[in-house]
């Protein structure tokens, strides 16, 4: 059990939760969160690490069902359980890097931005964020990017030329990630995407979160959630 430091609503139905404790994790990895003691809902909710500090971890999430609704009702100093870090996150990039997030897909990109912005191997970090209605957390992303591009109500994938970069990390709707991957000129740019699937265990046991890839079935929770973009067969 861990204590909640804050659980703030950033926009309608979108929350930022910060939890006290020393946690491990790398950009693109996730935790399973449980904000209730009963067996209902049965499963924890997989959330990408938004930020990691020496004494806390934070996540952003949107209320989409019962689990996230229950988490959203928790208050400062309430208890929450979390298990992780799980999965394979983004690989260490070099040179020019772009991070593209759509909607809640911005979640893993802040930690990525923070790690890369101060990394001497990185020439530039450009962040592209797309939102349906209102942009959130742009002040934070501003501080960890050399250029921040925000789109509300349009297609963020149209704002980027991925061939300007050595590495592109994308997280968002399948349509957005597919559009990014399809721009690829794979000689120069390496594109990685972070997938979202319904999960059971989070560790690779239940095989509920399988995704189809060039390497056959892969587990989103264990082999991913981050995969080379060209390997994924988008649905």
């Amino acid at each position, binding site marked *: 059990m861990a204590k909640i430091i804050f659980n703030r609503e950033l926009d309608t139905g979108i929350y930022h939760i910060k939890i006290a404790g020393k946690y491990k994790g790398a950009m693109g990895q996730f935790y399973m969160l449980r904000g209730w003691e009963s067996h209902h*809902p049965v499963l924890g909710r997989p959330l990408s690490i938004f930020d990691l500090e020496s004494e806390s971890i934070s996540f952003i999430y949107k209320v989409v069902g019962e689990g996230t609704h229950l988490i959203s009702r928790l208050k400062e100093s309430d208890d929450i359980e979390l298990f992780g870090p799980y999965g394979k996150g983004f690989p260490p990039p070099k040179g020019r890097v772009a991070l593209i997030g759509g909607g809640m897909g911005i979640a893993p990109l802040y930690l990525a931005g923070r790690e890369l912005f101060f990394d001497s191997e990185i020439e530039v970090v450009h962040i592209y964020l797309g939102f349906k209605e209102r942009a959130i957390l742009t002040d934070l992303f501003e501080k960890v990017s050399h250029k921040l591009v925000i789109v509300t109500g349009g297609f963020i994938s149209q704002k980027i030329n991925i061939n300007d970069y050595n590495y592109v990390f994308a997280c968002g709707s399948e349509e957005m990630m597919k559009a990014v991957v399809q721009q690829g000129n794979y000689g120069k740019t390496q594109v990685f995407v972070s997938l979202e699937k319904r999960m059971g265990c989070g560790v690779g046991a239940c095989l509920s979160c399988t995704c189809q890839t060039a390497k056959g079935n892969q587990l989103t929770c264990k082999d991913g959630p981050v995969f080379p973009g060209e390997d994924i067969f988008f649905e």
Partner: protein
Amino acid sequence: MSNRLEIKFGNIIFKNPVVTASGTFSLDYEQHFNLSQLGGICSKGLTRYPRTGNRGIRIWETASGIMNSVGLENKGIDLFNKQDLPLLKKLKEQGVRIIANINGSTREEYIEAINHLNKEEIDMLELNISCPNVKEGGMYFGMTSSTARVLVRQVRAVTNLPLIVKLSPNGDDIVQIAQCCEEEGADGLSLVNTFKAMVIDIDRRKPVFDNIYAGLSGPAIKPIALRMVHEVCQKVSIPVMGMGGVCNGRDALEFIMAGASCVQVGTANFIHPHSCLKIIAEIDDFLEAAGIQSLEEIRGII
């Protein structure tokens, strides 16, 4: 802990009565606890050759339960023997019982799979005649006593490994099917597998699962599973592994009082990765508080 948790399942000694259920556990749980503390580990449902499993949504939550439609995705016996068995053998050396869960579309496929496991150092075969998520085989063999009887007879003829049969709650009469398995030489039974169930997405006006039906597990099914274990235990003399929504020590003790020798834990592994350890500790606490020296004292008392 004393050895009061130790149980005998036929001739096989388990250090404690908690076994992980097929398809809900893997060696990946090593990141959460030392797996040598488990009574046993049951493998993912294996088939002779690899399978890619079902398309579409594979897991869905329902009130205190989950529905799954994984469809026996697995790496096949050869890769299991090569990749998983060496690690499982290390746990076996530490006293964890290793059970291989076997599936097939046809009787021939079951037998071929078993032929490729016969020489391996596993403690038991669990013959899965109860998977509701495959179109051919699986649960078909577990629906009637006649289909179960023929399969168990043929499998018994080709293996000397201890054989347990995993029963479906969806068949004709689980007690009769259990008795047929006993008559055909099964060394034990495990029950129940998931309940065939359904969920509809009313917005799309479509079933959630591509296969329409899926298997329901978890706390939601526990009282029915317990009743079935109780009924079967009244009528067979071979040992039974009880399962269906076991989430804590009290649940496990209910199954044991109903007649099971041990329990399998499935969905609870997803609720909390340390569930098995918690269940073992809670059973021990109960025995300690009640001054019980052996689980046999309370097994089947109902």
